Structure formats: C-alpha cells, structure tokens
C-alpha cells in the first residue's frame, strides 16, 4: 500500500515536471499530454503498438526487479538484452526452419545468451566479491563493441549499421495477431512477457529456490550459516536475471523490430531500473509500470507530429520519475509529516471539544 502511494506520487511528480518543461519551452502541457496519450491509445492499432513497446520493458524490468529481490543490482540488463537479442538474431538469420520450430529456438537462444552475459558478473561476485554494478557496466560496453563489429562483418544488410531483415519464420510477429490489432507490430513477445511475470512471481514467492536466493540477498552470512550454498545462489540469481533481459532483446530485435542495429546500447536496459523501482520490485507491479512507460514511449511520435514537442519529453519524464523513486524517502517523510499534522489537529480538536 505504502509502495503504491510512493510510486503514484513519483509518477505524478514526473508528469508535473514534464508539464513544466513543456510550458517553459512554449507548448501547452494540456494539449501536449492529450496528444501523448491519444498517440498511444486512440485506436486498436496504437494500443497494440503500446503493448509491443512495453514488452521489452516488462523483461528488463523483471530482470532488474528479480536481481533487486535477491540483493543484486543488475545495471547490465542493457548489455544482456543486446547480447541475447544479437545471438538470437544470428541464429534466426542462419537457420532455415519452419516457424513453429525456429521461434522457440531463438527464444531459448536469447535467454541462454543473456544468461551467459550475466553469468560472469555472478561468478565474479561469488568467487572474488567483485561488485556486480562495476562488472556489468564493463560487460555492457563489451557487448556493445562485439555487436558493433560482428553485425557488419557477418550479418550486414543494406546499410553498414544494421543487420539483414529477419525472415518471416524467425520473427515473433504473427499475421493473425497483427490483423487482430489493425496492423500493429504487436507480437508473441507480450504473451511471453506475461508468462515470465507469472513464472517469476511464482519462483520468488512460492519456491525454496526463491526463498534461498532472497535469503542470500538479505544476509549472505546468515544464509551461509543456515547451510545455503551462497555462491551458487548468487550465480543462479544473476543467470535468471540476465536470461530475462536476453528475452527482452528477442522481443525488441525480433518482434518490435525485424533487424538489429549497431551503435546503441538499448535504452530499455536502463529504463528497466525505473520500471523495477516504480513496480516496487513486484512482478505484477513491473507489468503495470512497463505498460505505463510503453504508453509514454509509443505516444510521443504522434504528439511530436501534432504539436511539435520533441519526443525526448518521454525520456525526460521517465528519468525524473526514476529520480523521485530513488529519493522516495523524501515522499515518505512528506506523507508521515502530513499524517502527523492531521493527527495533532484531530487531537487538538478533541481536547477543545471535551473542555
């Protein structure tokens, strides 16, 4: 309950800050927001696009949230997503199989590759106590440069900066699904995302494995004393977190887009931190937060076309929300002060009434 209030207030402050920015730069915030939300919701096609935009965020948000719950800070979701998406794309462009076989294969490849990219930081943390924040940042940029070189060398499309488009059989897009949503690029990723939310919620709350990983996160030494394999649990938690981010890469590069581009670390990896915070590290909260951010991202093109507000307003709002979520203690203090004031007032009223 308190988490939800803090999250909603962070969103509110983020939107107010966005409104101020629009006003300062000479646009009307009310029309700005109207077009922003219309752009994401106006038609069934736009709703489909909003859900598709949210899909990678569901995965990266889950990835970061799961790591947080097990006491780890996975700031490398971006690199894991890139590497997972890249390996899956590589396989999708190489193998020539029927769709019913190829799609499950690329999904598994994406998960495994993302997991592999997170295995190393997990191992370094377990064996050498190397902080995962630093090692995952290093691996983000390692993935960036690997993809930067391998794509033009082996998967080059019509431009130097992107791969060939994926064959239909390797894409997550389905004809019937796109038709259902009026031609949107919504794809199988959203179903995978919802499944992942349910699976992670189950693992965290209902299994011994989840319990052990949480226990290690809370207090490494106590968990060890209780007989848990600390190192193994840390590595496993990182691997699952990385695998989720890898699935985000599959959803992004093989569903929302149909090729992979070089020269970008995907934003979604860092937005995943915001999604996790806003969702209070709860899988269902992550789902809601991801859809909300998906809405902010998918409506911005329409808003830009209609009233000329630069699309970066969405990134700005999200960044401000994450700042407020990080400083949630400020909001909590504010709430408790308000509550105290109200209580004092009531007490004072009661006294004067009694006298």
């Amino acid at each position, binding site marked *: 309950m308190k988490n939800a209030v803090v999250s909603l207030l962070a969103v509110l402050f983020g939107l107010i800050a966005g409104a101020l*920015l629009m006003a300062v*730069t*000479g646009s009307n915030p009310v029309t700005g927001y109207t077009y922003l939300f219309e752009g994401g919701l106006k038609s069934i096609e736009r709703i489909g696009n909003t859900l598709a935009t949210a899909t990678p965020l569901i995965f990266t948000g889950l990835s970061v949230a799961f790591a947080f719950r097990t006491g780890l*800070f996975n*700031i490398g979701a971006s690199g894991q997503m890139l590497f997972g998406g890249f390996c899956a794309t590589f396989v999708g462009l190489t193998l020539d199989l029927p769709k019913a076989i190829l799609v499950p294969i690329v999904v598994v490849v994406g998960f495994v590759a993302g997991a592999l990219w997170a295995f*190393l930081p997990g191992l*370094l943390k377990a064996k*050498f*106590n*190397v902080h995962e*924040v*630093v*090692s995952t*940042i*290093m*691996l*983000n*940029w*390692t993935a*960036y*440069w*690997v993809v*930067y*070189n*391998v794509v033009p060398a082996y998967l080059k499309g019509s431009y130097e900066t992107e791969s060939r488009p994926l064959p239909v059989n390797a894409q997550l897009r389905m004809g019937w699904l796109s038709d259902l949503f009026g031609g949107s690029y919504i794809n199988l990723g959203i179903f995978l995302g919802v499944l992942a939310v349910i699976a992670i919620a189950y693992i965290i709350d209902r299994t011994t494995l989840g319990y052990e990983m949480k226990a290690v996160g809370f207090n490494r030494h106590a968990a060890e004393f209780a007989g848990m394999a600390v190192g193994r649990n840390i590595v496993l938690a990182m691997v699952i977190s990385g695998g989720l981010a890898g699935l985000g890469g599959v959803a992004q590069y093989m569903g929302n887009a149909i090729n992979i581009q070089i020269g970008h*670390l995907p934003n979604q990896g*860092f*937005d995943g*931190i*915001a999604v996790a*915070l806003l969702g209070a590290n709860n899988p269902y909260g992550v789902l809601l937060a991801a859809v909300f951010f998906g809405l902010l991202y998918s409506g911005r093109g329409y808003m830009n076309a209609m009233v000329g507000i*630069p699309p*970066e*307003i969405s*990134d*700005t709002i*999200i*960044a*401000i929300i*994450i*700042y407020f*979520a*990080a*400083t949630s*203690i*400020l909001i909590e203090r504010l709430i408790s002060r308000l509550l105290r004031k109200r209580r004092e007032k009531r007490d004072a009223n009661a006294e004067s009434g009694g006298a």
Partner: protein
Amino acid sequence: MWQLISGIFPYAILYTIPLLITALGGLFSERSGVVNIGLEGLMVMGMFSSAFTIIQLQSVVPNLALWIGLLAGMAAGMLFSLLHAFASINLSANQVISGTAINMMAGAITLFLARNITGSGNIRIQRGFTPNEVPVLSDIPILGKLFFTNAYVTTLVILLILVLSSFVLYKTPFGLRLRACGENPQAAEAAGINVRRMRYIGVLISGAFAALGGAVIIVTYSGEFNGSAAGLGFLALAALIFGQWRPFGVLGATFFFGFASTVANVSQVIPELKVIPPVILQTFPYVVTLIALIMFSKSSQAPRAAGEPFDSGKR
C-alpha cells in the same frame, strides 16, 4: 615505427584528456564516499551547456567565447550534480540509482532543449581551439616532439589541474579530510569534520570536472553536441578503477585507454595495425578493468565507505 607512434600520439592525447578530467572528477566524488556513475550524464550536460553558450557568444566575443563556454559547462555540471549530492547525502538514496537517473535525465533533457533550439537536436560551434606548438617545452628531445608540438591549450590546463588535484588530495588538510570521509566517515566526524559538507564538495567537483571533460570534447575534436558522450563517462569510471583511485594511476589508465581507442580507430587504415581485429582493441579497456578487479579483489584501494550512505549513529 617512430613515425607511426608520433603520428598517433597527438590523437591519443586528444582522446585521453576528456577521459582524464572526467575520471579525476569521479575520483574526488568517490574519495569523499559518494559513488558517481552519473559521470556520463554530467559530461553530456557539459557538452550541451558549453556548445549552447559558445554559439551564443561566438559572433560577439570570438576570442573569449570558448573559454566562457568551458566555464559555463562546468557551472552547469556543478548545478546538475547537486541533484546527485542531495539524493545521496541528504536522503541516503541508493547512489547507483541516483547516478543512473542523472545519466538518463541529462541525455533526455539536453536533447529535448537542443531540439527546441535547433530542430535537429545537434548544436555545432563555428570553430574550436587549434593545436599549437608550446614554446620551450617542445624543444625537449623525443618527449617534446610527442607531447608539445601539436598541443591544445586545454590539454595543458587539464594536466595542470591533475597536478593541483594530486597536491590538494595528498598535501593539504582539505585533501586529508576528504579522503577520511571516504574511508571512515564516523571517525572523520569524531575528529570534527563535517562529513556531509565534504561529500557535497566531492560531488560538486566531480560535476564540474566531468562537465569540463564534455566541454573539452566540444572545443577540440568534436565541435558538435549530439546528445551523447558515447560511453566515455563509463570508460572514465573504468579508468578510475584501473587507476586504483589515485590521480597519477588515473593518468596512466586513461592514457592507456586513450591510446588503445586511438589505435582501434586508425587500425583499419594503417597496414601495420590491420592484423589486429578492432574488436580486441575496443573491448580492451573493459576487459582489462575486469581482470584488474579480480586481481585487486583482495587488495583493492577503493575508498572503504564509498557507496554507503553516511549514518552518524553507526559505529
């Protein structure tokens, strides 16, 4: 071989200098006990503010515009880093999250503003500094040719800041107090040091220096703001670790990385270097930093209290 090295050298230095000053900023922040992974965002802030200031002034005061731009960038970086300082010092927020927010905000807000100004989101200055021969120093055999025949004035300024920083950190009471706050803030407080104030100073210096790093890129080799520092802020963070949180260690690390990046950039046009695949050179800084982390895992010189919120009641 000599010709190759002396040809690459000016570029390596050019690339090293922004990294050096940014990592030095990170050093002040972490030595005071606040981890700052927002260096990338602070660089972007410096790039934007300096480019914006310079295009306003270049037609009015062409000679001073670049210097004023550098100062404006530093001021903006300091202001922006206040957000990080406030969150980490007053609110005991998670410093990594706050730093991430800084990175995201800087990238988004500057592009948003730049698009409002120029439409495309890019800001190009008319002209930057040009390299010059430094009198006297360029006459030193070998080193003079490598370092001082094609030197930018900003390079010399930043090397001066490096020497001053090292002096301040190790030879003045202020430096001792700053380092104490990063090692054992409770002891520092017991000795009468205002830990929060020292940490504010550390973070503000990191804001100013990282922004200066971004601004230097604008006035030397790039000349254009485009909303990104291309990961140099994170490379600076790697250099800070690889240099083990010491000013001259950082100098060595940044030069090492700067040289590797330059070789990676030119390796495809120079026959002698073409045998090395560029991906090796490009990932090199990150991989060696990972290896360094493992090697130093038992004897790391990292400030012991870095990343922990200060709780004066804790013992």
